[in-house]
């Protein structure tokens, strides 16, 4: 994802989430977003069975 696409996500996402971005933060947020989305891609590429249950913590 290039910088323009990351900036688009930052602009739209921060507005939707109610976070007021300041220009001075952008470079660092962009860097961390790129890292996070890279990890997200690694996770989303996993070939997992449909039936597999997620593993958050819960006991009935």
């Amino acid at each position, binding site marked *: 994802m290039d910088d323009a696409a990351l900036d688009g*996500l*930052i602009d739209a*996402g*921060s507005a939707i*989430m*109610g*976070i*007021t*971005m*300041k220009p001075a*933060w952008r470079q*660092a*947020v962009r*860097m*961390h*977003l790129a*890292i*996070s*989305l*890279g*990890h*997200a891609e*690694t*996770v*989303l*590429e*996993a070939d*997992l069975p449909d039936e*597999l*249950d*997620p*593993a*958050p*913590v819960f*006991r009935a």
Partner: protein
Amino acid sequence: MNGSATAIAAAVASGRTTATAVVTACLDRIGRLNPVLNAFTAVLAERAFMRAASQPIGPLAGVPFAVKNLIDVAGLPTLAGSKINRDHRPAMADAPLIARLEAAGAILVGALNMGEYAYDFTGENAHDGPSRNPHDTARMAGGSSGGSGSAVGGGLVPLALGSDTNGSIRVPASFCGVFGLKPTYGRLTRAGSFPFVSSLDHLGPLARTVGDLAAAYDAMQGYDPADPVCVDRPPDPVTGVLDRGVGGLRIASAGGYFRAGASAEALAAVDAVAAALEASETVTIPQAERARSAAYIITTTEGAALHLQRLRSRPDDFDADVRDRLIAGALVPAAAVVQAQKFRRWYQQAVLRLFDHVDAILAPATPCVAPLIGQKSFVLDGKDVPLRPNIGVYTQPISFIGLPVVAVPVPTAAGLPIGVQIITAPWREDVALRIARALEAGGVARAPSSKREA
């Protein structure tokens, strides 16, 4: 205060010293060294002397300890390393783990510096300043339990509590050259602590000897319904089994991912530990890289959700290094979070099968020795990468599925210590601690004395 916790307790129990004398010496050392190490954010002298005067008894009688400042201490706001939480009302009661340690005779002497909201591997803090490495004060203590590593590594206290979501006990243990225990997920109650990532948060001890680590761990075990994650199972004391040796244990080193990016010092430390244990086998932890990514995604998104209101209302009051990561976390697609939790199920099942064949797995705790304070990048696997997001590359795939780990300190040719993880099956802290004890007895793992003996 370089005496071990168990030695202090024995001296107090026998009448060779008193808890008051121990507290006096401890506070004196804190007063001399903390201005340099910056490990403490609160020193509780009055409380400690009152407690000492009550002539505490138990396996930790008279042992001073301190806690990461995300753990509730009655009368103090629970900072969690933040500026924002300074506005919180003081905690009404001590966290259960403090109460349990004090029931065993220990004496709380203070609260410890940490990376803001525990989203940190450096021990740096924009509000309180960095906790410093006791073996080279120009270097990081590691985080986020930086004050815990610095205080124990510097001999200010023999015992401290930290938290570990992705490595925040094991990283400072590695950088500061102390033993650290991240127990099984759900073993020790987290009640009365400020959260970070509920899916991954653990509390645990750091100490200078394996016996001290075990004594503290034993004192803190036990079910607590106040933490929904705490598992209802009876305590499983380990102190009495530490010296059973490692004969018959099947121990292997983690290959592949866990060797790919490590520095020469990290690899040499793992190899030295493996050689001492005659552990020649290598195992592959399947899809560890993806596990690390999944832990990363769960962390950044749960962290962002936890702090969203504060990001909206008080963004300038965050440590910028933390705020900017949390904002990025708020923008990660939800599908990745759910998939990360699904992958956790798959990965847990796959890794648990390894323990059909081995009892413990060895891996580096950190890819390198302590970096310089302020350093923003380092070389990992031949590439220059941002430091803050990548120091936990070897710890994250392990805590991701809640396995117990003891980090043991090993000396390096660089003159600084580095940690090796001893990873075992869930609820087998006893095996990890037995191995750590054997390494300590053999002189392979040891907490070096701080050069700061002023």
